[in-house]
């Protein structure tokens, strides 16, 4: 019970943090941001490995293996494609921007 409560506390604080982290992000970066957070939830790969490691029946082995493949795709593909996208964001050519020109 104690553990559950503490997990709840972490869940709530982390949720607020998530909200704060993303508020006011510029439209310019919406697509890469979505793609990167997408890669982060690939952390389920950790769950897949843990479950697979304790597998002792065919069902779990098969299902766990598929889960590992899918999770690895999510993680590696996600970070990779985000990196590719962001690699294209050239830094400004001239330092001084003429906004109100």
């Amino acid at each position: 019970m104690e553990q559950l409560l503490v997990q709840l506390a972490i869940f709530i604080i982390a949720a607020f943090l998530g909200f704060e982290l993303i508020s006011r992000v510029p439209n310019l970066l919406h697509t890469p941001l979505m793609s990167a957070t997408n890669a982060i939830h690939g952390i389920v790969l950790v769950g897949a490995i843990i479950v697979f490691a304790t597998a002792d029946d065919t069902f779990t082995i098969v299902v766990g293996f598929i889960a590992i493949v899918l999770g690895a795709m999510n993680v590696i593909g996600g970070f990779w494609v985000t990196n590719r996208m962001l690699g294209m964001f050239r830094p400004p050519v001239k330092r001084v921007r003429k906004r109100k020109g």
Partner: protein
Amino acid sequence: MQVATFLAYLVAAVLFITGIRRLRKPGTARSGNTIAAFGMVIALVATFLVVEVDAAWVWLLIGVGILLGGVLGAASAQMVPMTAMPQMVAAFNGVGGGCIALVALSEFYQGAAETWVAVISGLLTVVIGSVSFAGSIVAFTKLQELAFTGSVVFPLQQVLNALIFVGILLLSANVLADGAIVEAVGAPFLSPLVSLYILFAASLVLGVLFVIPIGGADMPIVISLLNAFTGLAAAASGFVLGNYALLIGGTLVGASGTILTRLMSGALGRPLGKIIFAGITATATQKGDQQEDREVHDASPGEVGEYLSEEANKIVIVPGYGLAVAQAQGPMHDLMETLESRGKEVLFGIHPVAGRMPGHMNVLLTEAGVPYDKLYDLEDINPEFDDTDAAIIVGANDVVNPAANDPEQDTPISGMPILEVEKAKRVIFVKRSLSPGFAGVDNPLFYDTEKTMMLFSDAKQGLQEVVEAVKSA
């Protein structure tokens, strides 16, 4: 849980947070992505060190699985064209959702979910994960135009949705009550595990039904929502496994995905509920057949090129959905360079909902080599139009349609802030016809023959011809 593992997971979580923080500015975004990826590596290594494995073949299979998934993921990530980014994100989100659902299934099979909290979290994980998986795959096929294109509706769709939803609730209760519920309703006994399999299948169907009625243009919002779903499912499985890396990472993604979804639907000027339920109640947007026989100024590439090179000094380019369709980023970049080499000032005005996905236009243009400090967003570009000599609108309509501000008209885009190109001295449209855009609202600017030149052409070809004309002018 060992102390070292816990600390490693905590470090991973901190790196995720730091990574997301840095993703908020273009200058630091790439390093942010790398930092988050590094956090993932730490979490994985910590997991390897802590799991206890009986036989070597288990390690082997884990390695093969990661390698297989990694190669598939990396290869598709490397080969996907930037225009196909929305479906790529959808696909990766889908596999993540699938992974979570399968993890939860195995846990139930192994009897790992013992407390009622674990059972409820596990059920949530299965349902959300599978909806996210199936929904994302449908979104992928829609965007890739493999199947389900447009808004797919059929009779009694809502009734079916409701039935499946009730069924899922019933099956969940059955799992919780160890099989007692379905029997009580009068049906034959269903063991918790069998209920779970049916639940899994039903959730997949629900995911499909949830997404097929939603039109292609609303797909990015749906993908973002499913992304948040997958994050929540990961957090829920963190509860089940008592794993803090999953808990924190999943929660961060769930919360930030929710906000991102709201930001996006806010930029579209439509509340989230409307997108989802308008999809389900499915009113098709009235498109086309509004071409009128009113007079327009039908300009040739030569005429446009001449005006640009001789009379215009400050030029604002407004790209839209049609640019992505025509893959005209390259010629647009050429146009920028050619004009700049003649001493013109060239800016880009990017509307938040231009393109196929929020922020997508920016990715396309930066890919073509436009530096991101030339990409102005709505608030920054509008004051610039006052002394702009030419606004070139390429494959866009809704985002520059002054009808949105006309209090007399009630259109789907009414109230949406637009790029005020009509304040520029001349307006040049590059599109194939007079047909309106996604919202189906005719644009009065087309018929302002004094101010507007219509260059009827495919965006790619049209821009190439304009570049030629400027060069030879």
